[in-house]
């Protein structure tokens, strides 16, 4: 397992014009869809269930199980079904979906056809973060190519199955990556999470049965169809099978996307990425984006799968590995992240809206040397009042950097307050200007 494996998801990325239909077709492309369309849709759902594919958007929900929530009724009298691809990629540090769509858009499109077929959807929407125009253009071009080649549209490959794909430019907010906010945004409303139930499988886009999946989740599907579930399970761990794209950023020699089976450790990944930049030692890192509690050098050997990360007190998230060396101040990094959450909180619920606003101010004050030891306890208590009390998971994510930062590096926070202590004896009411 320690060895870098033969790439699966990224195998075409280095081929010339990898994004072209012709390249894709030369390299096994659109072979899976031909197999899939010959089988009954339920069999596709069963296959993905057997393979144990878990969602790559952050939560790791088993994709096959999600698909099976869609009503089984065939077309005709029943309501239309929708497949929505979450290509908003907003989690700080995450950089895998957009590279995937740039390098190999047809693998996503092929996955969309198979998944839509499995869920009896005839419309698929790809919600791409609005800022990445180049990616939207590439995806649009690929969709056009697929239409022209008969992979999309009416009666695909003579199977009688119809599918239209619409590429939609997102509305530029982190919250629009949350699946129900994404659906509102896709409908043209202000993106804010919806009350559940009803869940999207019952009433999603335009109140019709809908499945939302991440780009990488769906792009993985054609390989499973071609390779089978046993092949897929050869990679990764029992509960987290399959390959995964790790986006490694920060203080490493060669940041970028690295494909490796789930369960790979940071120590192994660092090797792939050429080690720490300039040899400066590792201080802290996130296993799956800023919403996942940070790790330290003590966690170099934690297996990076859903279970391993959770057991070590964090989450696998989007496998966005942000690496920080000893030159970085933890309170400063935590402040920056918290400012992000404050900026991106949608405002719907009290804990996240008000809590991130408060926490950001406390951290800014602390980094400016005007914090107190009491502030640290207050922050932890405010985090406790946000975590699990917010409407959606954004609020939960917002407290991760603070709680984990203080857990591992309380001294750094305290040190920032030391300086202030002497001044405090002179002026009792620090910051009291409310």
């Amino acid at each position, binding site marked *: 397992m320690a060895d870098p494996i033969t790439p699966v998801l990224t195998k075409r990325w280095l081929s010339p014009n990898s994004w072209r239909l012709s390249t894709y077709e030369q390299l096994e492309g659109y072979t899976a869809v031909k197999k899939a369309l010959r089988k009954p849709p339920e069999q596709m759902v069963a296959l993905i269930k057997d393979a144990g594919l878990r969602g790559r958007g952050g939560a790791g929900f088993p994709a096959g199980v999600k698909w099976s929530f869609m009503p089984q009724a065939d077309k005709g009298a029943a309501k239309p079904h929708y497949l929505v691809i979450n290509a908003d990629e907003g989690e700080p540090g995450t950089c895998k979906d957009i590279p995937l769509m740039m390098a190999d858009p047809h693998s996503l499109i092929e996955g969309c056809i198979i998944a839509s077929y499995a869920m009896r959807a005839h419309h698929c929407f790809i919600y791409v973060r609005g800022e990445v125009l180049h990616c939207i253009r590439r995806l649009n071009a690929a969709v056009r190519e697929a239409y022209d080649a008969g992979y999309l549209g009416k009666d695909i490959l003579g199977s009688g199955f119809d599918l239209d794909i619409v590429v939609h430019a997102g509305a530029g907010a982190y*919250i629009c990556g949350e699946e129900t906010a994404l659906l509102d945004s896709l409908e043209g409303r202000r993106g804010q999470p919806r*009350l559940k139930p009803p869940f999207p499988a019952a009433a999603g886009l335009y109140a019709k049965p809908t499945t939302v999946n991440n780009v990488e989740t769906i792009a993985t599907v054609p390989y499973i169809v071609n390779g089978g579930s046993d092949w897929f399970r050869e990679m990764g761990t029992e509960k987290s099978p399959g390959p995964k794209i790790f986006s490694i950023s920060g203080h490493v020699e060669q940041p970028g996307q690295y494909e490796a089976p789930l369960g790979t450790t940071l120590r192994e990944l660092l090797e792939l990425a050429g080690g720490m930049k300039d040899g400066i030692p590792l201080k802290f890192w996130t296993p799956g984006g800023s919403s996942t509690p940070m790790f330290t050098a003590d966690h170099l050997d934690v297996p990076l799968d859903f279970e391993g990360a959770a057991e070590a007190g964090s989450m696998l998230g989007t496998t966005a590995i942000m690496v920080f060396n000893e030159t970085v101040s933890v309170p400063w990094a935590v402040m920056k992240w918290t400012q992000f959450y404050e900026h991106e909180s949608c405002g*719907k*619920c009290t804990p996240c809206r008000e809590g991130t*606003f408060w926490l950001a*101010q406390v951290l800014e004050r602390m980094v400016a040397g005007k914090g107190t030891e009491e502030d640290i306890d207050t922050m932890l208590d405010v985090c406790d*009042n946000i975590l699990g*009390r917010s409407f959606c998971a954004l609020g939960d994510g917002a407290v991760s950097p603070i709680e984990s930062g203080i857990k591992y590096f309380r001294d750094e926070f305290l040190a920032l307050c030391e300086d202030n202590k002497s001044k405090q004896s002179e002026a009792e009411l620090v910051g009291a200007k409310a």
Partner: protein
Amino acid sequence: MTIAPENTETEVPEGHVKLVVDGEEVIAPEGELLIRTAERLGTVIPRFCDHPLLDPAGACRQCLVEVEMNGRPMPKPQASCTMTVADGMVVKTQKSSRVAEKAQEGVMELLLINHPLDCPICDKGGECPLQNQAMAHGRSTSRFVDTKRTFPKPISISTQVLLDRERCVLCQRCTRFSDQIAGDPFIDLLERGVHQQIGTAETADIHNSASHTSSGTPFQSYFSGNTIQICPVGALTSAAYRFRSRPFDLVSSPSVCEHCSSGCALRTDFRRGKVMRRLAGDDPDVNEEWSCDKGRFAFRYAAAKDRIRKPMVRDESGELVEASWTEALRRAADALVAARESNGAGVLTGGRLTVEDAYAYTKFARITLRSNDIDFRARPHSAEELDFLASSVVGTTPEHVSYASLEKASAVLCVAFEPEDESPIVFLRLRKAARDKGTKVFHIGQWTTSSVRKTFGELLACEPGGEAAAVDGIAEHAKDLDAALSSDDAVVLVGDRAAEVPGLFGAVTRLAERTGTRVAWVPRRAGERGALEAGAVPTLLPGGAPVSDASARATLETSWGLDSGTMPAEPGRDTAAMLAAAASGELDALVVGGVDPDDLPDPAAAREALANVGFVLSLEMRPSAVTEHADVVLPIAPVDEKTGTFLDWEGRVRPFSITLEGTGALPDCRVLDTLAVEMDADLFTQTAQAAWSDFSRSRVVSAHQGSNPDQHSRPAASTPDTPDGTVRLATWRQLIDNGSLQVEEPHLAGTARDAVLRMSAATAERHGVTRGERATISTERGALTLPVEFTDLPDDVVWAPARSPESIRSVLGAGHGASVALSGGAR
């Protein structure tokens, strides 16, 4: 875990579940929200966004509780306002769970970090859910020492609603009300995070074209005042009330709205003899917790500077001068006795009386003036209408058709009735029925009005005047509607505009007979239904028996203590006939209640009648077109200063008692009682209580249900052709217009809908009218110029509001269904 003893054998009824809340076992109906279940047990879970009449939002997170399902605790506290009960569920509120209590304290602290501490100057201070709940569930001090988010204050949401954004807790009650209940999304959430705020299209950085009508004017709402009332903080305030008073200085009195026949329960708050504000009362059977803005804001007419507080008589020089009650009553009594002994006197009561006052007029006409010349209808009316009222309306109660039956109906057909303008609470109930219960609402009218749109309704368009033919055509041309009306729970609502369409009441009666559907009449004014019941019409006695029924008269003579055979037996004159008789000298005197000649079928003729008739007695609150011609004016009390009863459109009794005592103002029933004494008759209406008990005792219900309106002219198959260059006029009154009870309320007036002339693009083209410009409709009598708006009206039909601001009837001498000339530009 469950604290419930093992051997509990409580029966769980069908459709119910058993759960445990704070250790107590409860049976709850399926679908009940935990917050309500707890409330039934006496545990109030703090909340902000929750409102029982709005869809759950789960936004504020104030109502968190701990929940266990199947013996397993859920990992996070749950919002009790969004989670429904389930069998075997174990719920721990703040009473039994430290986790829930801490979660609630935490949210409360967070809500307060950005909330200004301006309670001492805030309208809501003293009645503020945030203040109260912060005291009950919050920390005593705040740990927040940094800088609060502030906004420039305040912004106008409309002319009558102001928003202080920094006080807002973003519970979304106001936006959800506007969207879900009223159907007027004129406010919405803007921005995000801590900058999220309530705003309008005008306050948004990004101009939101979706929130504008096609003509570019922002949406308005007739219901915006409700947002002030349901705001759980002092963020939304009323322009009229803002900074005027503190809740603890106010005395509250339950009251009933005097404006329309919806019958809203209100709460009137006053201080030192002055009404400061009115709020919607909570009456689940009628207005639920809502009211329209007219009911909420239009009450200052009673405190108008020109209010008449002393009797007045016309002196030799022709001026009205103040006089003593004795002198004024004497003058009136002498003149009315003389009239009675000569050609007689007629009584126009107006449509705004309480049952008690209307009953006093009835008795005054029958006993004191010995005449059946009495009519409450100060608007277009017809004999056919009277027959319909006698055969289908008088005596009906909510058992026949009620608000609840609208909600239960599978289909409701509105005929010549514009619910949002004419009975806003009926409108809200229709919208609720359509939105929540799937009731199908049909409208026979001229264009897709807001009422059609917001009740998710279907329009059956016809020419103005063509309504009767349209109703007759349902069986053939609207088979789905016909089938829908044949179901047991269908309802037809007819508005008082139907009186302007010959044959319409007959057609509606035929429809009801054929399909078995129930018909209810929804008049515009609050007093009409009661006046009908009180017998303030030329053909009916109190209770609805016909005047021509000798045995009914005999019964009434006994209960009224009259000599047998003294009651006039011939049906009297209706409003128009009385005015004509007065103009021609066939009547010598008129007794006039709250009547505005501009509302009458022919305002010019009415003015002429008032000018020509020998004597006019006016019972009024403020100077009017009637007092201008009156020989004697007797001041009467507005609703705040009297006790009384309205009957709403359902026939539901809506009693209210006096709000402002000791002002010296007298109700009509008392004034008439005293005047009758001067004329040697006793009405027994010296108080509203006396009048009510006399009325209850005396009403005669007759077995004979009056004549069928069907006997009147059948509608022509199609309306007569309009002569060249002319078009047919559709018109009705908008809720907020220049009505006399809306004076001195500039904030309310600011939310009136614009007066526009509506027509189709084809009509405009044919008559040389350009979009966005003004056009003129005219008759021989006059012309009215208004800005043009293109609407889906039938060709060669125009629509104009009846009194916004000018009275169409005054200016043109024409009404709904008339043909008028149309030309582009002003004239």
